[in-house]
């Protein structure tokens, strides 16, 4: 149907301009041929002719001729106006026999015009469909050969060439055809895609319904060990072999089992995991890991994680440094969750910086598995990736690993200032009183952010040395907020020194700061 419609449009586009062109082409360009053509037409509305004799004297026989009815003008004699072209030949012969030289003038709407103007007038009439051309065989006359010799050669395939040579018409036609073609292709492809999508969705629904009954009966009627010991033939009695071979059916099965596993509790989870392996879906998940689309690879990692496919971990390990954020995040999460012995080397060797979201996600898993597995967090301190080292320091603080303070002290001297700030916060959180030397060093740092972090740590684990440094810093500090922070820390380290510094100072700002720090209502303002 669409094909017929398209061809009709194309046909019309090709035929209409060609037909008009053909009508115009029928009018000869040569003057002799044009005259013969007019003879064939007999009469043309608004087009006539007359004879003009450019001589001073007119033969007597013509003076009284009632047919021509010559009248004298400035330059010669002109005949009356004729409309019947069939008489033209006869009139011409009369003039030739009398030995008079003459000229045939065309008259369009009472105005003498040239042959080409008369031709154009006729072309316009034809184009506007005001004049129907009479077609007929031009009979060869005795002067046919001489006429032919005067007629310049024109190719017989003029119609076709004219269409092609009129580049504007040709370009517009090509563009319209192209538009229709593209539109048709788009419509057909959209329809076929929609049909394909509907078919897939219907098939998925159908498979989803077919899965419910065998899955339900297996989960309720079989014990876990019975599922684990099931033979392939028995499995196929629940899930037909021919269906299991179909990727769509496998996909629906995986989705349903994973979905159910998330909503089920108790031995049902174990049964689902056993069934997943019995159906060979674990192999599909592992194979999908290498899918070129990142979302499919991530889904495979989710499946491995949900179904506890420990045997897939060596493969999963390969993706911990994937270029794709989601793939490497999920790979690390899967390894943290499933590894028997989490040594965190895979995390240490990550070259990409850890985002806050990733840190939060990994922390959630580490908190859960950390109590069951002995995590060697210190491995993370050896990472070449700064964000991993910072994450390691944060983990020490959040998990309360006091046993790793010594390790932190070992690396503290040679790390970046950002890491030093994290270490200081960790010392304060874990109450590392033996590390005051490091805190005091940081207090003296020219980096204000580090110095402030050290001041906060000193407020908790500082000593008399810290108090002395803080007094010096308060004296030198001009920025109100920083001075406030140092004073607050000094108050935490040594209250006597705080009183000494604030009360023996002439600066009224110092007294305001003191009141602010001592006022319990303003402590958090």
């Amino acid at each position, binding site marked *: 149907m669409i094909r017929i419609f398209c061809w009709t449009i194309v046909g019309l586009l090709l035929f209409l301009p060609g037909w008009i062109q053909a009508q115009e082409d029928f009018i000869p360009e040569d003057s002799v041929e044009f005259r013969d053509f007019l003879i064939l037409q007999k009469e043309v509305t608004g087009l006539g002719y007359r004879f003009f004799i450019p001589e001073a004297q007119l033969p007597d026989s013509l003076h009284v001729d009632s047919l021509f009815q010559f009248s004298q003008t400035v330059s010669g004699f002109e005949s009356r106006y004729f409309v019947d072209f069939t008489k033209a030949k006869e009139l011409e012969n009369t003039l030739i026999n009398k030995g008079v030289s003459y000229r045939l003038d065309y008259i369009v709407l009472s105005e003498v015009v040239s042959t080409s103007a008369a031709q154009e007038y006729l072309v316009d009439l034809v184009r506007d469909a005001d004049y129907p051309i009479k077609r007929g065989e031009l009979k060869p006359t005795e002067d046919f050969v001489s006429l032919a010799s005067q007629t310049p050669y024109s190719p017989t395939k003029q119609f076709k060439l004219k269409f092609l040579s009129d580049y504007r018409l040709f370009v517009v036609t090509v563009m319209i055809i192209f538009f229709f073609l593209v539109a048709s292709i788009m419509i057909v492809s959209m329809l076929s895609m929609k049909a394909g999508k509907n078919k897939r969705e219907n098939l998925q629904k159908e498979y989803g319904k077919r899965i*419910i009954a065998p899955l*339900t009966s297996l989960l309720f009627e079989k014990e876990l060990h019975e599922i684990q010991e099931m033979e392939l033939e028995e499995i196929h009695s629940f899930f037909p072999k021919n269906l299991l071979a179909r990727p769509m059916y496998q996909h629906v099965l995986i989705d349903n089992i994973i979905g159910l596993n998330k*909503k089920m*509790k*108790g031995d049902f989870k174990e049964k689902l995991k056993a069934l997943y392996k019995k159906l060979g879906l674990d192999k599909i998940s592992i194979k999908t890991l290498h899918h070129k689309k990142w979302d499919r690879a991530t889904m495979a990692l989710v499946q491995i994680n949900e179904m506890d496919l420990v045997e897939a971990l060596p493969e999963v390990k390969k993706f911990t440094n994937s270029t794709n954020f989601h793939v490497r995040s999920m790979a690390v999460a899967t390894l943290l969750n499933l590894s028997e012995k989490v040594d965190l080397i895979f995390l240490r060797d990550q070259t990409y910086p850890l985002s806050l979201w990733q840190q939060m996600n990994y922390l959630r898993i580490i908190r859960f598995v950390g109590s069951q597995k002995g995590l060697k967090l210190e491995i993370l301190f050896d990472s070449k990736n700064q964000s991993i080292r910072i994450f390691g320091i944060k983990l020490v603080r959040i998990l309360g690993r006091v046993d790793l303070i010594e390790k932190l002290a070992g690396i503290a001297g040679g790390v970046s200032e950002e890491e030093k700030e994290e270490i200081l916060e960790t010392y304060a959180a874990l109450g590392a009183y033996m590390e005051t030397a490091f805190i005091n060093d940081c207090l003296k740092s020219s980096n204000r952010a580090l110095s402030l972090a050290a001041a906060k740590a000193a407020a908790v684990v500082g000593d008399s040395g810290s108090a002395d440094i803080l007094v010096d810093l308060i004296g030198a500090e001009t920025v109100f907020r920083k001075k406030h922070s140092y004073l607050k820390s000094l108050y935490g380290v040594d209250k006597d020194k705080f009183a000494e510094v604030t009360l023996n100072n002439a600066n009224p700002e110092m007294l305001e700061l003191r009141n602010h720090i001592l006022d319990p209502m303003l402590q958090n303002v």
Partner: protein
Amino acid sequence: MKKILIIEDDLLISSLVQFRLKKDGYETHLVCDGNEGILAIDALNPDLIITDVMMPFRSGIEIIHHAKQSQPNTPIIVLSSLGEEEQVVLEAFNMGVADFIPKPFNPNELAIRVKRILK
């Protein structure tokens, strides 16, 4: 035979629950959206309603509200993955539901609770 209406949009979950309850000898009816649930409550006059919270067209809360107006004595068990959302649990209990079972759940545990409520 006691009649139980299960309103749940997840066909697999509702089928599992139905299978388990049928084993205990209950007459079960499944509907998979809120609108159908409200119609089924009026049409079936069930002895117990088990409903999800997040469903197409009408939420479980709307269903509880309707059930409490039309059949105030019918006990309702809410089965939802919104179990961790305190607000939803509180709202359900304030409306007078008999029990709230959060997902993930164990169908056997659900069957025990059903038996206890219908005793």
